[in-house]
């Protein structure tokens, strides 16, 4: 099994169930892989396949179910299941989202928006502390894609994330596509957003495709992870690399899944851009 070291500063891919068989059969040269832990917590055939993958590749667990922004207690059972999976898989990274998904005992299967207030900061920071204590490791928190903004937010999202990282010691997962999508949908400057994020906290970057939908005559961008990364997002990624340096980067593709080779092709584009920012140490790691 690959050791419990950091992810290489290379471009990996999100691994979806339909690609697992081909991946294990052909062992393509992907530098690392990321999966949603929720898909493997039930054990069985799925977990056995993830263990086989983990023996060959560095793996990152990217959670969608902890609902860190829910007012009230975190789901103790879910956290316990995540801890068991982390102990079993020994991922290089564990990440979650700045969002909520659970309220009143129902799970809404979406990364829902939060008002950025002192109250919310307290809730999310307490939950991040609890998760980091339970897992015994630092986690990364990802900026969500937004389709609305609450009027009573008292701080901008990147300031909120910076303060969350300062309070809890968590790292940040900078999803460049989400920044682009949110900037369009709720009208802020994507470049200024990047410039506000604390450089030292950034532990991973996400890239993905999005769709443009019509909503009452206005275009709204949907973060559907169902197409290639768009040109403006590549451009924003270049700017992120200029600011953050070479950071492990992931190509996400969740809907209308293409051939595995298409994902690997997208990752190799990101990889070439990353290499231009790689330090001497990174080159040694990538060799």
């Amino acid at each position, binding site marked *: 099994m690959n050791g419990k070291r950091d992810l290489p500063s290379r471009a990996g891919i999100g691994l979806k169930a339909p690609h697992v068989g081909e991946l294990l059969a052909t062992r393509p040269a992907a530098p690392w892989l990321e999966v949603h832990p*929720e*898909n493997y*917590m*039930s*054990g*069985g*055939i*799925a*977990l*056995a*396949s993830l263990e086989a993958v983990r023996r060959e590749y560095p793996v990152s667990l990217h959670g*969608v*179910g*902890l*609902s860190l*922004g*829910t*007012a*009230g207690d975190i*789901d103790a*059972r*879910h956290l316990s*299941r995540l801890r068991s999976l982390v102990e079993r898989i020994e991922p290089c990274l564990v990440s979650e989202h700045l969002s*909520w*998904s*659970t*309220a*009143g*005992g*129902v*799970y*809404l*299967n*979406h990364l*829902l*928006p*939060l*008002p950025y*207030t002192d*109250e*919310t900061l307290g*809730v999310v920071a307490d939950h991040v502390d609890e998760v980091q204590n339970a897992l015994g490791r630092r986690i990364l928190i990802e900026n969500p894609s937004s*389709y*609305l*903004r*609450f*009027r*009573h937010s008292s701080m901008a999202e990147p300031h909120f994330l910076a303060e969350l990282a300062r309070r809890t010691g968590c790292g940040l997962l900078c999803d460049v596509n989400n920044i682009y999508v949110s900037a369009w949908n*709720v*009208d802020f400057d994507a470049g200024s957003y990047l410039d506000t994020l604390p450089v030292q906290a950034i532990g991973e970057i996400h890239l993905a495709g999005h769709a443009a939908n019509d*909503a*009452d005559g*206005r275009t*709204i961008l*949907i973060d559907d992870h169902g197409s290639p990364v768009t040109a403006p997002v590549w451009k924003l990624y270049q700017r992120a690399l200029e600011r953050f340096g070479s950071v492990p980067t992931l190509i996400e593709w969740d809907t209308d899944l293409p051939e595995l080779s298409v994902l690997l092709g997208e990752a190799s584009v990101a990889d070439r851009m990353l290499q231009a920012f790689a330090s001497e140490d990174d080159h040694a790691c990538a060799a």
Partner: protein
Amino acid sequence: MLALRDLQARFTDSLFATEDLTLLDLVDSDGLDARARLAVYRHHVLATLTATLAAAYPVVCRLVDQRFFAYAADAFIRRHLPTEPCLVEYGAGLPHFLASFPACGALPYLPDVARLEWAVHTVAQHSDAASLDLARLRRVDPRDMAQLRFVPNPTVALLASPWPVDKIWKAHQEGTSEALPGLQGGAVCLEVHAVGETVAMRVLEPATFAFRDALARGLTLGEAAGHALESYPSFDLQQAILELLDDCIFNDFTIITE
């Protein structure tokens, strides 16, 4: 200003039920109506949960076509939202829901096909379950044997239907050459089990099924034997018990004392 807990309760309600003016007031319209913004979230929740159900019930999806499935799934989701984030475990109630969904009345076998799909779906999640401790079983006092109550192995599921659901299932697998079966006289007793990285199913004799199903429902060995012998007087109990152990149907047991 709403407390976060209140905002989240109102947001949840507004996704599936009545419009909440207090919540709408909190959303910055900014060139697009707050209702349209909320609708993006509603659409995503429904679309992804529908996709989750379609992945667990691919044959039901093929039997009714995608549009009808989405219609039925929408009604199911609104009544039975997931309660936790491991969505591979979401959808257990769909067969029961389809049985009472009026629009499915023309396909009376549909709920049983759904039950079979759920059995296939769930046993695959338990291929690493523990097996029965046979040494411990051998130490049980023979006088206590009738009082044994077994714990079902989650890698195995039992299912009986008046319809040939196994044949319907096989005829709707991708790339199959199996023909669609006739529906009459196709009653079947099935055992579905995870084997390595796949799931297999086999047809059981009705007597064997009655015995195993009674045990799986929590009857003691004595009660289950009585149940099977009552309906099938020629049932070979001794052979059935041996096969039970060979087939790893159960992975634990207790002795029921009065």
